[in-house]
Structures are given as C-alpha cells and as structure tokens.
C-alpha cells in the first residue's frame, strides 16, 4: 500500500521529538491567544507567524497548523463562556453554547465542542490523506488557463461568502490584486508602484497587510465598544458529558463533519458557511427545535464539528493547488513561499516529508487539543478575563516587533500602521478585509498565469472557454455570482448574515 508507507513517513516526521514539541507549542500558543476576545485565527496566525521563520519548513507548517486549530478552539471557548465570538464561524457556537454556560453547563458545552472538534478533525484528516493526492494528480495536467480559471472561481466564491455588498467585495478583491502587484515585475524586471522606494522592490509582505488590516484594524473597531464587553464568567464545572449527552451529540457530530468536510474544500472560506449550514440542519432534524437558541447541546456539537472539519479540509486546495480558500490559508501559503516552497500540485511529490508530516500532525494536533484544553480550562478562563485595556497594547507591541523581524526594517512598521488605518476605515464602509487578503495573495499568481495562458494561445482570449476544464471552472464561477444575484438566494443569504449580528 502506497498510502500506508506515505503515512508511515508522515508519522516519522510528526512524531519526531521536535515536531511534537512545536506542534504542542503551536496548539498551546494558538489557544492562549485565540481565547483572547476579539482575536480571530487570522490575526492570531499573523501575529505568531514570525516565530516560525527560523524553523525547518515542515516544522514551521506543523506549528502553524497547530496554532490554527488552537486559535479556532480558543475562539469557541470564548464564544461559549463570554458570548464574544472571535471569528465568524464561532458565531453559531455562541448561540447555544453561551446559553448552556448561563444555565451552568459551561463545562458540558466546552467538552462537547472539544469532542466534536476532535472527531471531525480525525475524520477530515483521513479525507485529506485520501483525496489530496488524487486532486494533486488531476491538477498536474492543469495548464495556465486552468489555473487562471480556478483562481477566478476561488475569488468568485470569496465574494459570495463575504457578508455585505457584492460590489464592495469585488472592489476589495481588485484592490487586493493591485496591492499584490507592487514590487518588481518578475517577467520584465520593471519596478511597479514602488514610488522609487527600495523597500518596496520586493513587494509588500502579506504579513504586513494581515497584521495591519486584521490586527490593528480589529483593535480600532474593538476600542469603540469597550464598555459593551460582558465579563460575566460562570464557574466551569462538570466537564465530563454523560452517556446520554454523548448519545445526543453523536449524530450531530457526524452530520456536521460531513457538511464541514464538503464545504471546507470549496474555495472562499467554507468554515463559516459550514457552521451555519450545520446549525440549520440540526434545528430541522431535532425533535425539539424550540430548544435551539436556549442551550441545545446539538446546536454546539454540530456547528463545532462542521467548523473544524471545514478548517481541516480547507488545507486540501491549499496543499494541492496552491490556492487559498480563506485568509488563514492565504497566510499558510505566504509562510510556505517564505520557506522557499512554491505551493502547488508538485508539493506532494517534491516535499513528501512536509506533506505527509503535516497530515499526520493534524491528527496529533487535534488529539493534543482534546488532551490539553479540558484540563487547562482554568488557565483559559483566566486569559479571557484579562481586561482589554491591558491586552490590546500588548498585541500592538507584538505586531510591531513581529513586522520588524520580517525584514529587520522599520519601514515595514510604518506600512503596517497605514494598513491599520485602511482596514479600520474600509470596515466602516462595509468593505470586508478577507477578500482583500485573498486577492493580495493571488494577485501575482493570477497575473503570471494569465500572461502565460495568453502567450500560449497567442493573445486569443477565447481559449479560456474552449479548453474544457477551464470552461467548467469559469461557468461555476459565473453560476456562483449569478446565484447571489438571484432574488431567492439573496434573501436567504441576507438572512444568514443577519443572524450573525
């Protein structure tokens, strides 16, 4: 069996003492920072990214993945305990999780989230091990046309999933694409939009954009409603769910895993969609739908599993196609590129240690989450209760030092500040930053593939629709866009985003 020997290779990598240690450290740091109210996984990873620069590529990626699950689980903890979801996908968890906590069942809710996440994560990891190599094989026949169309599809999906106006999301993507082009043009060596500044010759690091727009921008938004922060914390008791509880959550966890695994693969940030879809389904499937919103354990189990499964499978397009499906994966791609690895279908062949090591460590990381989080819950509660007034100056300090350490240049700190202002102001105008980051990462790739495709077809743009795979991808993108313009779905989408608020 090929798969077995591959997994064995992965196990050897993942179980090396250092990788285990960094995975543990990643999960721990990710959770510790992820539980802090107002810090989602994107900001957490952006902040911790510089820590991994000195590591070997596989160790760095293993640690980053650990940070990612940790941050996600930490976000759910905060959502359950203080009703402050740090990211959109734990909004759903807050609905019933917080109600459970208010009824004194905080421990049960947390355990449910942890168990659901673990089961979903384990299953999704197996799915990745099976399907990622297959997809990569398909992707090997992809030419520049197919890549271009695939990226267009990814961007279209991110438009659909962004809340708020369609027009604004498209605008943010275009702005991101343009920002991504700043620096030296790889084809001609021409300097573009550098304003004569040498510091811009290599382009802007995506970490600067992410920290500015997500980190600083979010802090500025949070500072507006400081007083609204509820610090009601219930004492966490009764962690172990009863046999009856386990029975109740079994089906929701499996359904959530299935939904999450499928939606997570879709480009454009499926994790949030997955948790919404799972919640809706559990509510429909439940014999007591009236309990939802009042502390139904199924309403925590389903979405949490879906969320985690989606987070896991979103690695598939990133690892096999080199295309990020959400801002977090965009950060991962950036991290890979910084390590000198070009993400794409050849990664599995050329970097088997990295690929399989990461997959096995995903499972290890999920296990660590389960083992680590329940006993440490007291510590997380303490972290959550740190007043924001102490927290955000420390975050700003870490961002500034972290950005400096990228190129050892103070110029980057200035740039991050400017992006912070841009992020805050754009948020005020309902322009979401997530599509901007996706566009930013995809910009250079999109141009590269477009140029190659046009060169191959001698300037004939119709080849994008005459090549079958490319045509299918473009039609899918078109359908996606058309679907939000259709009145019925539009109403549903607005409804879903209304719930979020």
């Amino acid at each position, binding site marked *: 069996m090929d798969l077995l020997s591959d997994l064995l290779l992965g196990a050897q990598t993942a179980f090396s003492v250092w990788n285990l240690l960094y995975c543990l450290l990643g999960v721990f740091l990710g959770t510790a920072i992820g539980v802090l109210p107002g810090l989602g996984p994107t900001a957490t990873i952006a902040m911790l990214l510089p820590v991994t620069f000195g590591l070997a590529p596989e160790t760095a990626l293993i640690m980053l993945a650990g940070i990612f699950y940790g941050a996600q689980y930490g976000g759910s903890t905060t959502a359950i305990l203080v009703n402050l979801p740090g990211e959109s996908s734990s909004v759903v968890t807050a609905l019933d999780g917080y109600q459970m906590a208010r009824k004194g069942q905080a421990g049960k809710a947390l355990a449910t989230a942890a168990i659901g996440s673990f089961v979903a994560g384990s299953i999704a990891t197996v799915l990745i091990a099976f399907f990622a190599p297959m997809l990569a094989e398909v992707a090997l026949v992809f030419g520049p046309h197919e890549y271009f169309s695939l990226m267009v599809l990814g961007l279209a999906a991110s438009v659909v999933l962004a809340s708020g106006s369609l027009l604004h999301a498209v605008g943010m993507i275009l702005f991101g*694409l343009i920002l991504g*082009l700043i620096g030296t043009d790889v*084809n*001609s060596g021409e300097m573009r939009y550098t304003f004569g500044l040498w510091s811009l010759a290599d382009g802007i690091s995506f970490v600067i954009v992410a920290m500015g727009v997500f980190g600083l921008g979010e802090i*500025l938004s949070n500072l507006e409603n400081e007083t609204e922060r509820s610090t009601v914390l219930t004492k966490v008791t009764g962690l172990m769910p009863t046999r009856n509880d386990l029975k109740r959550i079994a089906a929701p966890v499996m359904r959530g895993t299935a939904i999450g695994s499928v939606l997570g693969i879709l480009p454009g940030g499926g994790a949030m969609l997955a948790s919404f879809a799972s919640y809706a389904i559990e509510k429909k499937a439940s014999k007591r739908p009236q309990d939802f919103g009042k502390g139904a354990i199924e309403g925590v189990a389903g979405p949490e599993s879906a969320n985690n499964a989606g987070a896991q499978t979103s690695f598939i397009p990133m690892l096999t196609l080199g295309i990020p499906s959400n801002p977090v994966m965009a950060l991962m791609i950036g991290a890979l590129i910084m390590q000198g690895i070009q993400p794409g279908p050849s990664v599995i062949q050329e970097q088997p240690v990295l690929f399989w090591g990461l997959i096995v460590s995903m499972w290890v990381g999920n296990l660590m989450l389960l083992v680590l989080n329940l006993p440490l819950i007291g510590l997380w509660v303490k972290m959550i209760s740190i007043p924001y007034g*102490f927290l*955000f100056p420390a975050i700003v300090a870490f*961002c500034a030092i972290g950005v400096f350490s990228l190129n050892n240049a*103070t110029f980057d700190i200035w740039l991050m500040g400017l992006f912070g202002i841009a992020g805050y102001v754009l948020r005020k105008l309902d322009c979401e930053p997530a599509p901007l980051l996706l566009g930013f990462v995809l910009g250079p790739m999109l141009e590269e593939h477009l140029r190659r495709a046009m060169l191959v077809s001698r300037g004939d743009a119709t080849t994008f629709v005459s090549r079958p795979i490319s045509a299918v991808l473009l039609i899918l993108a078109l359908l996606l866009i058309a679907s939000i313009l259709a009145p019925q779905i539009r109403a549903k989408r607005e409804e879903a985003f209304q719930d979020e608020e």
Partner: protein
Amino acid sequence: MQGHRTKDFWAGVVYVTLGLATVILGRDLPMGSAARMGAGYFPTVLGGLLALIGAISAARGLLRPGEAVPRIHIRPMILVIGATFFFAATLEWLGLAVALPIAILITASASSTFRLAPVPVVGLVLFTVFCVLVFVRGLGVPMPMLGTLFGA
C-alpha cells in the same frame, strides 16, 4: 437623493480614487500586447475595473437609500497608529527597552479605561523585560536594546 452620507457612496469614492491612481501611476509602464503582456497591462486593467466598480457603487449610493457611514473614531486611531509610527521612528534612536514602553503607553491611552496605576506600570516594566529577553536575546531579532541616544 440620499445625499453623500451613505457607505455605498464613500466606498465608491475610495475605489474610484484607488483605481484611477493605479491607472495613472502605471501609465509609464509598458503595456505590451494581449499575447505578450507588458508590466503595465494587468494593473491597468485592474485599476480600470476598480474605478468602474467604484463609479457604480457611488452612483448607487447617490440614487438609492443606504446606510450612513458610522462615526470614525479619530482619537483611538491617532493614538494606536501613532504609537506604531513612534515606535518605528525611534527604535534605532532609543532602542527597544525605551521605545517599546513609551509606544505601549501611547497605545494604551487610546482606551477609555486608561489609568496610570501601580499594577499596570509594573506589568509594563515586566512586559518590556519579557520582550527584550525573548526577541533580542532569545530570537536574536536585530533591534538595539538601547539605541544610539545612549551611546550604543
């Protein structure tokens, strides 16, 4: 006429400005042809599209009722972003051990709950020591602990 207060209108204005700026700043870049695209081709197309999107959004903002732009809080923005600028400007001169706590104090004053009390000050000192130890000593980030002002 809804007036000029809507999010749509202002987002449109921002997009048009950015789009036009992209086109104008890129006008000296070689365009090339569709088959052999020059450095200016792709950005010019993107800039044009962005300006177009912006124009539609602005028009929609003028014609259709929409949400007004919520208040932009200037004070926290100046303090928080200003603190990062201060840190960037004085890092070489003051060094991490001095520039960092000052920057943190500037940042912290953006909060409405900001008070100078003994506990936070001790925390600030400890945090600075932690950062110096971890980043300068531990991770070897090449930033001076004390800057040129102190003869380092």
